[in-house]
């Protein structure tokens, strides 16, 4: 008997969204023989499956697609090149080996693979995690839940909700409402500026939705269904908006609960796994890509990241990837900084990549990379939360003899 311990697959990919599917296709293209994608939903495709609006697919298919069509194409392409997609299989634990324990409709099973890519994506921060007060009526939904109900089931959970947040996903929620004939009564943003790119600022106006900046929801009212929300401005003055729903959008968090329960190291700053510049986790047989790495990027970005990670995994299988040690940790200095990904650098050439940095609040200042007291790179930034900041890693002559500091010197207000 060899079946008990021999890996059944070269690579097992957990999560069939854009990152997982693009990695699977790229692995096949690079000649990796057996690749399986493990997906817990009934269909692979990930979040775009229920984003029934444009624009998806420019980078991947050179055309503008709706989310569900984009997801279907990703799946179709993976199946065409011989990727095995196992749906309705939930991973319950990650173990050294690598070994993956799963639950399927038939019960428990174990999957062994030579390498594992974790691409479990993100979810929105809930009303509970934001400690929003008031009662707990029906009609308080995340964008994800709203889109599932509207696009997958044709339901209309409310008709006059407020939208909390102004990230890209908040505008996605707005479009979803329009699709379903739902008329939001306000868009509420705690910061003084809109979070998504300025162009989208036109959108709520164009759709006749008042935008309230510097305001937060302090209380949700209603017994069975939401009846109103109490909104406070920066001075603490409150007003009451009648609404029958609240869409709590964005503030994405990596869906990292599997990692937290495992032997793999998690970064408390990003909420995702600790990775090096080769997408490699603390157990070098495990890799990660897509929004699990950090909240949050577009589907196209995740798709590209999946493809890049696939090349590293292929290299790892071929024995050409640099050793995971020695490595240096990256340290953040400046309290506006929220995270940096990767969190670790291996002393190796190749792997042309970037460091991804984000801020936790709107901030202006100078961002630098400092190694052993020496400033290697600097740039002025005017940053908002949830917006991408990139440091080009390939141009940094990083000497890993000393700690690497990402320093953000904020302008004095």
């Amino acid at each position, binding site marked *: 008997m060899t079946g008990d311990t021999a890996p059944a697959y070269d690579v097992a990919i957990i999560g069939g969204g854009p990152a997982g599917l693009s990695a699977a296709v790229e692995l096949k293209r690079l000649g990796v023989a057996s690749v399986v994608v493990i997906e817990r939903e009934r269909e692979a495709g990930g979040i775009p499956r229920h984003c029934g609006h444009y624009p998806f697919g420019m980078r991947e298919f050179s055309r503008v697609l709706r989310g569900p069509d984009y997801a279907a194409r990703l799946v179709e392409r993976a199946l065409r090149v011989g990727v095995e997609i196992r749906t309705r299989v939930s991973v319950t634990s990650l173990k050294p080996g690598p070994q993956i324990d799963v639950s399927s409709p038939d019960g428990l099973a174990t999957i062994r693979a030579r390498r594992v890519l974790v691409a479990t994506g993100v979810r929105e921060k809930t009303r509970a995690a934001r400690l929003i007060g008031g009662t707990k*009526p029906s009609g308080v939904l995340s964008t994800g839940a709203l889109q*599932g109900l509207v696009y997958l089931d044709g339901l209309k959970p409310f008709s006059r909700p407020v939208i909390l947040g102004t990230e890209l996903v908040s505008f996605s929620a707005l479009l979803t409402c329009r699709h379903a004939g739902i008329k939001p009564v306000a868009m509420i943003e705690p910061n003084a500026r809109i979070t998504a790119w300025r162009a989208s600022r036109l959108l709520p106006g164009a759709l006749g939705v008042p935008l309230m900046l510097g305001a937060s929801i302090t209380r949700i009212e209603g017994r069975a269904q939401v009846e109103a929300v109490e909104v406070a401005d920066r001075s603490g003055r409150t007003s009451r908006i009648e609404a029958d729903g609240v869409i709590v959008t964005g503030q994405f968090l990596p869906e990292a609960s599997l990692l937290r329960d495992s032997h793999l190291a998690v970064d408390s700053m990003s909420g995702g796994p600790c990775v090096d510049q080769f997408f490699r986790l603390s157990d070098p047989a495990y890799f990660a890509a897509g929004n699990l790495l950090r909240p949050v990027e577009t589907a196209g970005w995740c798709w590209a990241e999946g493809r890049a990670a696939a090349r590293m995994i292929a290299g790892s299988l071929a024995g050409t990837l640099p050793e995971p040690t020695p490595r240096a940790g990256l340290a953040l200095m400046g309290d506006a900084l929220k995270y940096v990904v990767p969190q670790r650098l291996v002393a190796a050439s190749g792997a042309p990549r970037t460091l991804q940095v984000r801020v936790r609040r709107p901030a202006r200042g100078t961002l630098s990379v400092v190694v052993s007291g020496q400033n290697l790179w600097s740039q002025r930034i005017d940053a908002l939360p949830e917006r991408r900041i990139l440091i080009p890693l390939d141009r940094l002559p990083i000497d890993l003899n000393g700690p690497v500091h990402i320093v953000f010197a904020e302008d004095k207000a």
Partner: protein
Amino acid sequence: MSRSHAQSGFDVAVVGAGVVGCAIARRFTLEGAKMIVLEKAPDILDGASKGNSGILHTGFDAPCGSLEQSCIASGYSEYLDIRERLGLPLIRSGALVLAWTEEEEARLPELMQQARDNGVGDVEALTSDEILRREPNLSRRVRAGFCVPREFIIDPWSAPHAYLLQALTNGAELRRECEVLAGQFDGSAWRLETSAGEIAATCVINAAGLYGDLVDQTLRGVSDFHIRPRKGQFVVYDKAAAGLVKSILLPVPSATTKGIVVCRTAFGNLLVGPTAEEQTARDEAVLVPETLAQLQERGTQIVPALSDIEVSAIYAGLRPATEFKDYQIRAHREINLITVGGIRSTGLSSALGIARHVFSQYLELGHAPHALTDPIWPTVAQISEAGERSWQTPCNDGVVCHCERVTRAEIEAALEGPLAPGSFAGLKRKTRVTMGRCQGFYCSAELARLTKDRLKHPMSGAPDDR
């Protein structure tokens, strides 16, 4: 009371299907009474019973000689006796009573003596080193404490579900959306006018919880107590937190409250709460962000590693406190009415004991039913982390709610049977769907599909109530 009369109606109508009403329905059914349970909400456990901390208390800190203490003691031992036959979980966590200040430390000997006086003789004093050896993730600021080895964690919903299910399986009836509006006692029996028609019963038991005084006023014209709803807010941490503490962590209690508890749940989460806030509203427990943040801070003071773990749920419950300290259980002999009021805070632990106590009062009223010789013992679905879950077994038909790992088979089973939910909130209490870290982000659409045309009150979105 003659059996012939009861044939035209019920022996006993219980008003209120909280944990106490469910336990009374079970006890009386097993003793041979023909029972009906009247609940005004679309689902059972919709009042005080939906927001407790899920602890099976020994009653070590209850007032000595109180009715509460004796009901907790007998309820506790009956739960241990029957739980396996009904499929109910038990997590043998034990509890630690912790002193964080000099004043609290000074009160420990007195509390330990009270425990021994209450028949909880196995309490044991612990130094801070001993406490930290047991609970290495606890803040090093802890001064001293004692352990109560037989305080356990249970599932606050499956227990009352099982009690009522056993009653129903053995012949009791349940009417939901059935509010008692008026009632006449004609000298031998009651005619209750309800929102769902007239119901005849020889005896009425008022177990209306937060509405106990109002139901007494409706039926007797007067109430011996006033309900003073006491709100308790909780924060619940995600699964990663449950591994941080083994024991139930109790503070030194004050005169009015047991204080803020840090405790694993039967479902593998960790809760911090409750607060104790008096209010007048009986039907609305408002969450206050500042208070929730304080609870989070308190949790982090006790278990510092909590600062790194996300809050997965927030909720508030109302306890039916009164102006009295003890339970208000009284038989009104002349009108065949037993009032079971003021069951504040300890009802989950004491319900089975209360049911026995109330049944003894019923016998004193002159009733003499014949106990069932061979009652049926149905089991409830096992949804706690204490035993094997559906997702771990074949034929589960796939996981739907990924955070709480609730399978399609579990949801389908919950939607059938005598206790099939009437609302989405009821389904949540039976299965835990959408109660995990994503609060319905992933599974709302699938749930809408599964419950379509199967709930009397369909989900309009993903209801966020508990």
